[in-house]
């Protein structure tokens, strides 16, 4: 096993990887941009090196700077986390050239699966259904127009090198095609330094369901069941579950078999995720394979008890997975809510700022993965994730109520958050019934009007503060529509008991 590895990432995923490293006795090296000097991953690591200015392109995407730190600090391997260089074939290749293990599949497999067009072809050749659309990445508008005419609207334009919800546009009207084409190219270039585009049929009523895969160099390829990821905003997942309430044993068997086959035919190693669209009739289509750890991996860990990062490290070190398929069991239900510093009332606009208070939930069945702390500034430069709150319970309904309880305990003060959005989703009848698709968040969630007593409470609190020996903060601060969720439950939860 490795003695020391570098984590080429930041935030909660860097810390997530370091946690397993500590448990395995592996020393950790963090890299950080100038904007991240005070970030928790720097404090958590055994060693930390600055790799450049705030913009990711000059730091977390600068593979050469990262490799230089790897050499200097004497690590044996590099864990890329998710995003940034995690699915960058060139970086994986450079690691190999530098004699360092890239903790992920080989550059060839990243090429084959990470590149969406190659992946589609591979799947088609192996009988895995794919979404109707281009098998080639396109660069000019006319070609895109032709494909649209062929497969019919609506279509989805996607960055060929994309991921994480970036560089995606739905086109339902031919007139919007040009704008969407330009926007996707720009976003794709900004995020992935590549402006190739894919065109796919868009399924408005579909679910997004993915299968977790683990594979080692010894030919073992196993699945860890599915994750339900249909609750999305702007193509980015918001709540994930394991298992999916929509997936019956028959569909589960088909999805996991297809996923294992996909991983097997390309000689996959490490952790990966095969994403599918599943329509109402339970037809499924290969969407893409993510050749890295996913944000939402905790729900799989909670249900299977398997530490996915540990298995990644074992596989990367050339060892066997610690589990065979027959050792993998589903136990109970898990849910994850991604807490962001953002404003759901304003198109999910990022809401950077200083976290003045951060209290995270505790108690039975609750897991928190966070990369922030009180007094830390949520930066403008990176994804404004504050924490992933995950719960486990014996049933989906118990998990849902546990999540509501956990969200109530969560106090984030100083920045706007999507905590309220999560509450609204969790008490929505459609969500509770399990009968939702990827457009769930485009619909209007029923507003929960503030109870009348709130104004009275605010007056009482004001009066109390003037009479208290420790008065209120003597300077009006710009408070945000957030924080003190602990108390919100007392109304909202009762309102939705059934």
């Amino acid at each position, binding site marked *: 096993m490795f003695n020391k590895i570098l984590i080429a990432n930041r935030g909660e995923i860097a810390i997530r990887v370091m946690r397993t490293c500590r448990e395995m006795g592996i020393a950790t090296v963090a890299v950080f941009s100038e904007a991240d000097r005070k970030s928790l991953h720097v404090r958590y690591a055994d060693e930390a090196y600055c790799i450049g200015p705030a913009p990711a392109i000059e730091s977390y995407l600068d593979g050469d700077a990262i490799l230089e730190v790897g050499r200097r600090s004497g690590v044996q391997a590099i864990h890329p986390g998710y995003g940034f260089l995690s699915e960058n074939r060139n970086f994986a290749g450079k690691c190999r050239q530098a004699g360092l293990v890239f903790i992920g599949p080989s550059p060839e497999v990243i090429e084959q699966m990470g590149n969406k067009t190659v992946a589609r072809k591979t799947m088609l050749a192996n009988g895995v259904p794919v979404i109707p659309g281009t098998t080639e990445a396109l660069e000019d508008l006319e070609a895109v127009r032709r494909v649209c005419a062929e497969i019919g609207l609506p279509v989805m334009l996607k960055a060929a090198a994309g991921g994480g919800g970036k560089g995606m546009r739905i086109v339902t009207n031919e007139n919007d095609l040009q704008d969407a084409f330009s926007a996707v190219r720009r976003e794709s270039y900004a995020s992935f330094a590549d402006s190739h585009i894919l065109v796919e049929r868009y399924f408005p009523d579909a679910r997004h369901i993915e299968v977790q895969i683990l594979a080692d160099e010894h030919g073992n390829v196993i699945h860890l069941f599915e994750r339900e990821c249909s609750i999305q905003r702007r193509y980015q997942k918001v709540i994930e579950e394991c298992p999916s309430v929509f997936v019956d044993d028959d569909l589960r068997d088909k999805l996991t078999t297809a996923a294992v086959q996909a991983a097997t035919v390309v000689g996959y190693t490490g952790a990966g995720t095969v994403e599918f669209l599943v329509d109402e009739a339970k037809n499924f289509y290969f969407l893409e394979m993510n050749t890295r750890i996913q944000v939402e991996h905790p729900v799989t860990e909670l249900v299977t008890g398997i530490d996915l990062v540990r298995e990644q490290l074992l596989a990367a070190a050339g060892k066997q997975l610690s589990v065979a398929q027959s050792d993998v069991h589903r136990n109970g239900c898990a849910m994850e809510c991604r807490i962001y510093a953002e404003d759901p009332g304003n198109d999910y606009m990022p809401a950077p700022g200083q976290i003045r208070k951060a209290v995270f939930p505790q108690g039975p069945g609750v897991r928190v993965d966070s990369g922030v702390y009180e007094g830390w500034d949520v930066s403008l430069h990176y994804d404004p994730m504050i924490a992933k709150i995950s719960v486990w319970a014996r049933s989906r309904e118990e998990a849902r109520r546990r999540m509501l309880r956990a969200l109530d305990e969560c106090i984030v003060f100083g920045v706007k958050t999507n905590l309220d959005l999560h509450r609204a989703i969790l008490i929505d009848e459609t969500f509770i019934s399990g009968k939702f698709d990827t457009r769930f968040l485009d619909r209007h969630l029923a507003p929960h009007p503030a109870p009348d007593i709130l104004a009275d409470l605010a007056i*009482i609190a*004001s*009066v109390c503060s003037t009479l*208290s020996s420790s008065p209120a903060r003597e300077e009006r601060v710009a408070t945000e529509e957030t924080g*003190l969720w602990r*108390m919100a439950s*007392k109304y909202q939860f009762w309102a939705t008991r059934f």
Partner: protein
Amino acid sequence: MKHAVQVDKRTYQVEYEKTAGGLRVWVDGRSYQADASALSGGFFSILVNNRSYDAFVSREKDSFAVVVAGKTMDVDFYDPRSRQPSDESKRSAGVSRQTICAPMAGRIVRFQVMSGDLVQDGQGLIVLEAMKMENELKSQGIGLVREILVAENDVVVPGQHLMVIE
């Protein structure tokens, strides 16, 4: 003494007196027994008729911002002499003039309106790229685009004025 208190544009009649157990407060005649205990940094634990709440209170003169039960409310105590909210500048009549500011650092991708355009409430004005996402800044009222203060591809800082609408 009675106080007129404004919360989110509604006015309430408030009286209070200290009691052995804390404080008795009447809001429009509704009676509450309250017991507040200061935690730190503007946070309070408040028992109102024995119901337990956390509250955050910040204050400037007679104007309070209170967060309770997940909602932020502005609480303004009128000056009993002038019978006006004490913080007048804040409450000056709605200006017809709208200045669009950058909500975060980013790059101007393009404009969706031109100088002289009439814009509707909610209409997209500017596309700002930040954190790798394109974000549309929208008008919060009707008006004419009077001035555009930046150019495409400009890098802007949070709060920077981008456009004036009247």
